């Protein structure tokens, strides 16, 4: 079941009255936010930070159960009739108000980020998942905290930073922040003002394409750590950013320090690599099976592996074998259409995998 469809509350009698569409089928006609079985949110404010980014304030409906600083949510938007989902880490203060603050940075060719940066407006309603992820502040706040962020991987760290400072955290907090240049740096002014107001907060920035502009230079290196203050070795450390940054930090935190390191791998949404029909691995997630892709239709490969898959016409018309593709690129053998979009329904009988692919079967 889609994570966006949270388990509906049971009102048995009401559901029989409202059957078979359920009470939400009628409530959403009055206001899309009135639904009781699905988390949705309304955009209540927008702010264009840099040219390439937008900050949205979302007010979730009553289904929302709150989030801990650092966690992520999935946001669903509809673009030209098609629903797309993406993960974002809200930068909101934990436990304050239900509003969520999302900063979206446009990626070249990114469908959802381009749509949101160009077309988002107040009043727009989006789908929302409950907050998820182990990357968050522990309930027992650590004494000293080191945050290391790269690019738009800064957003969960902003949530952690704001939460700690708003709570009047007694220990030292430091942020090492890596971005290409000052102009495209999100949260720049707020960070400067926080650093000015909170002596316990140590800010060190590196503009990798503008040497000399920040307190640090170049990509992450252990040499940068003294900038974070004297106690970084004992600090609970949170890192979020591109894979190269995360790997570099991981390498430094080896030898028993890993316990104190919390990692969120931040991967910009790129299209799945286009493989050849006979390449890669197919993962049948529900059956917990992996096999080498033969290039044959997925239904045939599943059956060959002993999975009793539901099927009908075997010619792409009846949709009995439709299943959700989680990731990978597939080709529709009837239309020749190739799609690399994650999370879409595909007909197994007429779809072949191009390279690695994972499907709920």
């Amino acid at each position, binding site marked *: 079941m*889609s994570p*966006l*469809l949270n388990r509906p509350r049971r009102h048995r*009698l009401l559901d*029989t*009255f409202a*059957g*078979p*569409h359920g009470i939400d*089928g*009628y409530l959403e*006609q009055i206001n899309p936010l009135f639904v009781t079985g699905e988390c949705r949110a309304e955009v209540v404010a927008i702010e264009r930070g840099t040219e390439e980014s937008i900050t949205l304030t979302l007010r979730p409906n009553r289904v929302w159960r709150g989030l801990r600083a650092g966690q992520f949510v999935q946001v669903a938007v*509809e673009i*030209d*009739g*098609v*629903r*797309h989902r993406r993960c974002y880490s809200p930068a909101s203060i934990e436990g304050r108000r239900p509003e969520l603050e999302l900063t979206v940075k446009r990626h070249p060719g990114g469908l959802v980020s381009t749509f949101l940066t160009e077309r988002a407006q107040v009043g727009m309603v989006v789908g929302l998942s409950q907050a998820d992820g182990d990357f968050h502040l522990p309930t027992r706040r650590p004494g000293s905290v080191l945050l290391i962020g790269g690019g738009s991987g800064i957003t969960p760290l902003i949530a952690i930073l704001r939460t700690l400072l708003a709570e009047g955290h007694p220990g030292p907090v430091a942020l090492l922040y890596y971005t290409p240049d000052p102009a495209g740096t999100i949260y720049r002014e707020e960070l400067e003002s926080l650093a000015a107001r909170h002596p316990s907060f140590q800010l060190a920035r590196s503009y990798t394409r503008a040497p000399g502009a920040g307190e640090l230079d170049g990509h992450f290196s252990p040499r940068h750590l003294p900038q974070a203050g004297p106690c970084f070795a004992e600090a609970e450390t949170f890192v979020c950013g591109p894979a190269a940054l995360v790997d570099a930090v991981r390498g430094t935190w080896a030898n028993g320090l890993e316990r104190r390191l919390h990692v969120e791998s931040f991967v910009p949404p790129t299209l799945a690599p286009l493989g050849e029909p006979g390449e890669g691995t197919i993962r049948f997630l529900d059956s917990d099976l992996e096999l080498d892709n033969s290039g044959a239709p997925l239904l045939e490969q599943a059956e060959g592996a002993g999975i009793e898959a539901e099927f*009908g*016409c075997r*010619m792409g*018309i*009846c*949709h*009995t074998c*439709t299943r959700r593709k989680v990731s990978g690129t597939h080709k529709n053998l*009837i*239309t*020749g*259409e190739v799609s690399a979009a994650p*999370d*879409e*329904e595909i007909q197994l009988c007429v779809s072949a995998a191009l390279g690695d692919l994972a499907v709920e079967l």
Partner: protein
Amino acid sequence: MATTTMTAPPPPARRSLTPEQLERFGEEMDAIRQRLLSELGERDANYIRGVIRAQRGLEAAGRGLLWAGVFPPAWLAGTAALSLSKILDNMEIGHNVMHGQYEWMNDPKLSGKQFEWDTACPADQWRHSHNYMHHTYTNIVGKDRDIGYGVLRMSEEQPWTPYYLGNPVWAALLATFFQYGVALHDLEVERVISGEVSAAEKRGLRKGIWQKVRRQTLKDYVLFPALSGPFFIFPLAGNATANLVRNLWAFTIIFCGHFPEGTEEFSEEETADETRGEWYYRQILGSANLSGGRLFHILSGNLSFQIEHHLFPDLPANRYAEISTEVQETCERYGLPYNVGPLRKQFGSVVRKICRLALPG
């Protein structure tokens, strides 16, 4: 089931095309399909959401008016609104959404596999008997159970028995109780009676039907009437009338899809190793359209474009009208019949067929 020797001589069009022509014909149909798929977008999403909105509104209005059904104008208006709601729900929404026509939208609420409709037949059983069996084996006597629904004789190729003397009576009963006829479709009662299928095999289906029928009955004949207290009889009668109106309308439209004069049936032998082109060809020869205005098409669930629907059962039905000219023109070029006529004419010929086939021959 064996076919009989009572087959009428094949009409001139049948098998009149060479294999090469059939292949080219199939390619032309595939091209229409692909073009349409590439055009789907916001317009189609808005269309189906608009129809759903109208249906939910009509239903709410109908239930409300029938609550006060003791006042004759409220009863009449309420019954009319609820009848329209059930017709829209079953035909333009339920039938089409369950075909997977809107799966490209990636919205779980419009997923063919998750939709449930306001009628006695459980959606999952319908998807099997209709999407798979009827649409794959359209008009193949012995495989397509829509030919007579197991109770009527609708083709010369069904061997006559004295039971069929009652053909017109059985047809009138089926029309009146159509939602239950559809609900029992997948049970194949007559094959259980004849011993071809064991009753035990159908236990799961029986349970599913019973649960759905119980919920629907509770809603329409107990819960909503109970809200009117001593005047319960008015909503009860209104709900029964709305169900009846929907039954008669659905029966009329559906029987005009494959049984008017000129539509053809096929044998299992001649369709054994069909190519894609031959499959398209059979869909055209076995289906008939109804001419009419836009509202008529919407209320028929666009099954008035039965030919287009059978060519492209999983493409959004709101598009059938615009491709019908091209389909008709293509049929003319290949010398294929394109059976279309007004409801009065087509249904008249269906009634004549029902009466004629009551007698041997």
